[in-house]
Every structure is written in C-alpha cells, then in structure tokens.
C-alpha cells in the first residue's frame, strides 16, 4: 500500500536507504532505459548486458547518499551507467561498439546528421552507414547516442557526461559533421 503511494524518485531514494526492497521500485522505473543505453553503447549479448546493468544498479544503491536533487535522478543514473561502461571497456581492453543498434536506430542518427531525401534506407546503405559510425571516435558516438537515441536534452547530456553545455553542443555538431564527412569520403549516396 505504502509503495503505491510513493511517487517521486527522491522519496524512493530515501526509503531505499532503509529498505532494499523499495530500491526495486526505482530499478523497475529505470531498468528499461538503462538496459537499452548499455546495449547501444556496447555490443554485448543480453546476459552480459544484464550483468552490467546489475552492477550499475548496485553502484547506484551504494551511492544513494551521493545523490543530489539538483540533478534529475535519470541523469545521475545514466552518469553512473556511462562511467561503469567506460570502466568496463578499460578493464576488458575492448572498444565500445555500435553494431548492436537496430536499423531504426541507425536511421535516427543519420537523419539527424544529414538531409535524408528518402524515408527509408535500404539494407545495403544501412550497412555502409554502420561502418561509418563505427569509425567515429567514442566521444562523438556517445553524444550522438545520448542525443538522438536516448533523446536526452543538452542539459541532461551535460549532467551525464559532466561536460559543459558548450562542449556537449560542440561534440554533437562535430560528431554530425564527422559522420557526414565520412559518408562523403566513402561515396555513400543512397538516400
């Protein structure tokens, strides 16, 4: 009964500190978003993504006292997830991949970067675009994913990546430019 009455993230955080069961409600709210974020940032099988997500949630639980209400809880949770992913890549010496994106997700990034005349890209074109995006540096890929797939506002990306708003805007613009340039270099003109 009490659980149903609780509405805000801040309330859930306070109660979670005393009762881990309540933390379950917070996890329920954000597990979908964070799962997809980890999937988009990594190229891991579902089980591995879930393992990473569990580690992220445990980190969030351990850091509950650090949460500051000036931030949106989702931004703070994304930040922890982002840092955890970077740590994971560092530990495993792997590079973040974006191959695991769905076709509609590739289209979103490309649509945001260049003028698309046709609504639907053909399969061959998608493969070529994937290759181009994969060659972008991680700093561009992560902002493009956050902005166009996670549909985060600039302020949220700023809080997630801990970068000034101007830097976020610059990274997004440069990422889009880099993608367009790469596609021109490779003579990809299938839109």
């Amino acid at each position, binding site marked *: 009964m009490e659980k149903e009455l609780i509405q805000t993230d801040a309330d859930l955080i306070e109660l979670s500190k005393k009762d881990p069961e309540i933390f379950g409600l917070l996890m329920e709210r954000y597990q979908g978003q964070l799962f997809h974020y980890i999937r988009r940032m990594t190229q891991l099988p579902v089980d591995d993504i879930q393992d990473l997500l569990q580690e992220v949630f*445990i980190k969030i639980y351990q850091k509950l006292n650090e949460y500051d209400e000036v931030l949106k809880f989702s931004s703070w949770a994304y930040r922890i997830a982002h840092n955890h992913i970077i740590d994971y890549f560092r530990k495993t010496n792997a590079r973040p991949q974006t191959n695991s994106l769905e076709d509609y997700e590739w289209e979103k990034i490309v649509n945001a970067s260049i003028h698309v005349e046709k609504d639907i890209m053909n399969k061959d074109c998608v493969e070529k675009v994937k290759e181009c995006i994969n060659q972008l540096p991680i700093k561009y890929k992560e902002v493009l994913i956050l902005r166009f797939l996670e549909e985060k506002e600039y302020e949220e990306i700023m809080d997630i990546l801990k970068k000034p708003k101007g830097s976020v805007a610059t990274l997004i613009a440069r990422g889009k430019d880099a993608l367009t340039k790469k596609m021109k270099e490779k003579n990809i003109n299938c839109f």
Partner: protein
Amino acid sequence: MKDLIKDTIVKIKKEHILPESKWKYLARKYGVWFLFVLVVIFGGVSLSAAAYLLSSLDWDLYRFMHQNRVGYLLSIFPYFWAVLAGAFIIGAFFDMRKTETGYRFSWLKISLITFGSILVLGAVMFFAGLGGRFNSMMANGVPYYGQHMMVTKESQWMQPQNGLLAGTVVASSDKSLILNDLIGKKWDIKIGNETLIRPIADISQGQMIKVIGKKMTDDQFEASEIRPWIGGGMMGGVGGGQRNGMGAGRGMMRGN
C-alpha cells in the same frame, strides 16, 4: 532472461551491501572546495608579493643602466612569485572543474572566476600591506630565494658599478655628502652644479637617499641625481625651488 530486479535485491541483502555513508561523500565534496579556497589564498599571496616587489622598484632606471624598457622589465620581473601565482591560478582552475557542479561552467567562466578571485584577493592583500610581509617571510625562510631570486629595491640600488647607490647620509655639505651605503660601506658623494636633487629629497644627516651617478673610485661617487629613499621624489616639486632652468616638478640643481 533472469529477473534482474529480484536477483539484484537478493544480492544486496545476501552480501550486506549498504549505501556508503554520507560523511564520506560530504568530505570529498567539501574537500575539493576547501582545496580550491586554499589554492586561491596561496594564489592571492603570490600575486600580492609580486605586486609589492613591482611597486617598490624604480621603473625609470633603465635610462641610467643603458637598457631598453623591455630588457629592464625582464631583469627586474618577480619571476618566482609570478610563476607561483600562475601555478595557483591553473591549480584553482582544475580544482574548480573537479567540484561537484564544476562541469556546468564553461572554461571561460571558470577561468574568470578563478583568475578574478585570485586577483581580487591579491589586490586586497597588497593594499593591506601583506605583500611585503609575505616577501620578507619567504626571504627569511628560504635564504636561497633572498640571495639569488629576489630583485629588491635594495639590490636594485646597490649597484655602484652601474651608477646606482643608496644609503644613509652621515654628513653633508654643499659640495659633498658622506653616505653609509646599505651594506655599511662609507662613500664620498660629490655634488656638482649639474646634480639634480629631487624636490622632496632630504640630504640632511640621518636621511636615507638614492643616488644616481658614476663610481669614480672605490669610495668616491659623483652624483648626477639624488632621490629620497621612498618614491621618486617628484611629489611637492611643482613650483618648488627650481634652479638652472629645470622644468616644474623635476627638482633643483645645486650650486647656484
């Protein structure tokens, strides 16, 4: 697909995982701010000491030392304090960037905040007279600094070979002075008709003065200009006792 929520809660309970205590987080958070304040204070100290040294030196001596302005400035610049102040400004910049909300400020804003706060604090310390004290503390505490790295008014004026001398007047007459220099050596200072004595330069016994001129022998010095120890001696000169056609405020010549 496993039940992530259930599994996570079981793991938290089983492994007795608890949220980290708040004080640890607060200690980290305020620790960074405390460090920022400390760095700004040290930056202010360095800046005020540099300003003190620059303000206490005489800036027109390049003319007498056959140097250009830039060369002279480079020879008297307080590099030690300037480098220190620069290092603290950079330190404050990165420390502020490391604070909880530091990332929200642009590079320009952080630069302005850090540089501005060090500048303001340095100015307050300088006008409160602390710059000289910090400099003395450094000179006393670190002998190497006092002996080799510090250009002071004293070192600037104790260069008889370059025509600069300072000390206390022991005896004076119309044609000469006996001067006890800053290291206790006695000099016979010749005063000629062309010697310019700045308006507020007092050359009576017991007064400290600065002399510009030419070293004649080991203990004789010919004065071309005499200034009071403090300042350039220009104040009070307007309309005050000019001789030999010198412009108002420039001083007076002896001998007529």
